[in-house]
């Protein structure tokens, strides 16, 4: 395939950063803290570092097979049948992840902002928004992410105003209370599962101009987004403390509700944080959708992206409506996140190893 559009590795970094700041941002501090208590910060740092494994694997794969997306790689290295089976698995899991995340998004809207708006409506609007954003052009995709990135990062500065309510004793001890290594790693995996969602990079490989800088810049993007999330975790934990956090459903939203801007320029900023978060949700869901739509198109070797994305709408919509209540949403969400994590990490690493073996075989 010959591509007219291309993106730079810095754009890739922007895509990674804006993708990982997403739906889990609101609820993540609570889940990590419920698992590991005060050790949440350390666990998140470990999770962040572990997450870079997937990024390095994907970008290394990109260096080796510059002309192929992950879909193409699967077919190339695993053969038509196994490869396509895995491809379908990727696409289906992307759709499930997207469905559940769009539901979480609608649920926050329903209980925090718009109680009378039917959540079906919020769900369908978000999916349509992703559909309409278009998938024909990869550089447009990169531009959309790059455009929204400042809108995600700058409002987080507002959270800094709560620093005077931060208590040191909420953050200590760093290793938590009577924590086993297993529990600690579970917390780290939660963080990892929440931020390792930049699989879309694997779909962009053929369009990247400078593969050499890709690992370096990709890591920068990952740390930029990861630090933004870590910052939210530190602030919410420092202000609320473990016991209060466990009671809150959306700690970041609650945090934004106690912030008072000096001089009372704005009397409440939770709307700003919610809007920021809606941008974040959009960019994340857009990335998931991109993988699903472009992936399907590549399997069928067509470029009817609009048709595919329109066909996918009802499926995602139905997935979004499956969970019965708020507890179930997060049960499903965490379980799929762990499952998808295996794909994100094991698949690129597996492909790298298989690639090496096949090369050796071929040489002999």
């Amino acid at each position, binding site marked *: 395939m010959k591509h007219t559009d291309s993106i730079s590795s810095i754009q890739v970094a922007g895509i990674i950063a804006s993708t990982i700041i997403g739906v889990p941002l609101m609820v993540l501090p609570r889940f990590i803290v419920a698992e590991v208590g005060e050790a949440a910060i350390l666990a998140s740092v470990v999770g962040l570092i572990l997450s870079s494994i997937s990024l390095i694997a994907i970008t290394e794969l990109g260096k080796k097979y510059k002309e192929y997306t992950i879909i193409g790689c699967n077919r190339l290295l695993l053969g038509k049948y196994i490869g396509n089976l895995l491809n379908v698995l990727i696409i289906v899991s992307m759709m499930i992840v997207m469905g559940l995340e769009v539901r979480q998004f609608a649920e926050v809207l329903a209980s925090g902002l718009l109680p009378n708006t*039917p959540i079906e*409506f919020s769900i369908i609007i978000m999916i349509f928004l992703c559909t309409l954003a278009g998938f024909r052009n990869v550089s447009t995709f990169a531009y959309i992410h790059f455009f929204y990135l400042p809108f995600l990062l700058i409002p987080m500065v507002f959270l800094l105003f709560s620093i005077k309510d931060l208590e040191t*004793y*909420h953050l200590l001890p760093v290793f938590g209370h009577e924590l086993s290594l297993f529990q600690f790693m579970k917390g780290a995996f939660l963080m990892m599962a929440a931020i390792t969602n930049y699989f879309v990079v694997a779909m962009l490989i053929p369009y990247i101009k400078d593969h050499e800088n890709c690992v370096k810049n990709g890591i920068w993007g990952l740390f930029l987004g990861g630090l933004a999330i870590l910052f939210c975790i530190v602030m919410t934990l420092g202000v609320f403390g473990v016991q*209060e956090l466990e009671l809150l459903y959306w700690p970041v939203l609650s945090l934004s509700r106690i912030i008072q801007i000096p001089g009372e320029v704005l009397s409440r900023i939770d709307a700003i944080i919610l809007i920021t978060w809606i941008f974040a949700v959009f960019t994340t869901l857009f990335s998931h959708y991109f993988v699903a739509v472009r992936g399907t198109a590549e399997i069928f070797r067509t470029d009817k992206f609009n048709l595919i994305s329109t066909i996918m709408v009802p499926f995602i919509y139905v997935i979004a409506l499956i969970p019965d209540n708020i507890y179930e949403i997060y049960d499903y969400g965490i379980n799929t996140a762990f499952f998808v994590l295996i794909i994100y990490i094991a698949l690129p690493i597996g492909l790298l190893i298989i690639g090496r073996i096949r090369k050796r075989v071929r040489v002999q």
Partner: protein
Amino acid sequence: MNKYFMFLILVSAALLGGCWDRYELEERAIILALAIDLADESKAAEMPEVTHGKGEFPEQENQRIYKLTAQLAVPGKVMLGPGGGDTNSGDTDWLLVTYGYTMKDALSNLQQELAEKIHLGHIQLIVMSDQIAKNSIEDIMDFLRRDYEIRRTAWVMITEGEAHQILNATPPIQTVPSLYLANTLKEAVKFGKLPKEYLGKVWIDFSDIGVDAIIPLVQPMGDHIRVEGLAYFKEHKMVGKLSPTETGAVLAMQGQNPAGYSNVVQSEDKSGIYMVKPYRRSSDISVKMVDGKPKVFIRVNIEGFIEEEPKSKNLSGEKLEELEKTINKMGKESLEKLIKKLQKDQSDILGIGARVRAYYPKYWNEQIKDDEGWYEVYKDLDIQVSMDYRILRVGMEWK
């Protein structure tokens, strides 16, 4: 064709979407303040059947009936900024009283009496009577936490006696009582008369292990209110109150600035009395383990100045040094007395337990485990107070 179709979608998205949750200002019954009192059992008969049938409310231990007084803003009447002199508070607000077994029950009963939908998003303060506070405020807090409209920055107060009387307080210069009340507390915090204990902070203190909450205490004075100090809690129960002086001491131990209270000092030879006001404070609460037991060191540094010297005109460098010594001794004694009082009532409002838990997790997990264990240790805890009070200035007079 495709282009037109897209255009149509965009236009309809702009026109058809929008304000599902729109409900206008005049369609809302904006509650500015809530006062919660205990009502006697006889009120149960008067309650309308809104959330439950007559006598069908599940019997529970510690069953209480709340008397809820809500202050509603009358839209269009509230003056923003300085307005005409002829509006008094009777025109701009409206007090309604309902009864209920729980908060939501009482509010549902209130809703039956109102045409507009109750809106809690602008609630400024919640006043509770000390009777309720001494019993437990856990169930009231549950409702407040769950409702998404309520701001965490709202104020919560406790009053001795009838809480609804607070809502009647309107000085002639203010138009809306609850705005006046919320403003009183806000300014009190600004001048260092009260710690910054708004609803969100109180919730955090209730949740934290090893920290107990404090809530501002106010007293109705007819058309205005008086800040009476603080009510301190053990878990969800109010166990005592602190006078303004003691509140100042608590603020000093927390190292909060600015300081709001002046103190009277008598010189050693009883020749004169002096009003000293702290203006910069810092403090350090540290915990050390001595022989397997926690030992607490509270260090308070205060810089102050002399505000008044009514009797003797004899200030000098030596005199200030002497005064510093006296005030250090006096301050240390009063802090120790206050801490003894808090220890006796087992209320850890300084968060010493949280610090022990943070810095010595191993000790905590082996010996103390939870709040109950901590109270046992806390009541006989060795707490050392040291104070370094320095008087830097004496005002515009030389002597």
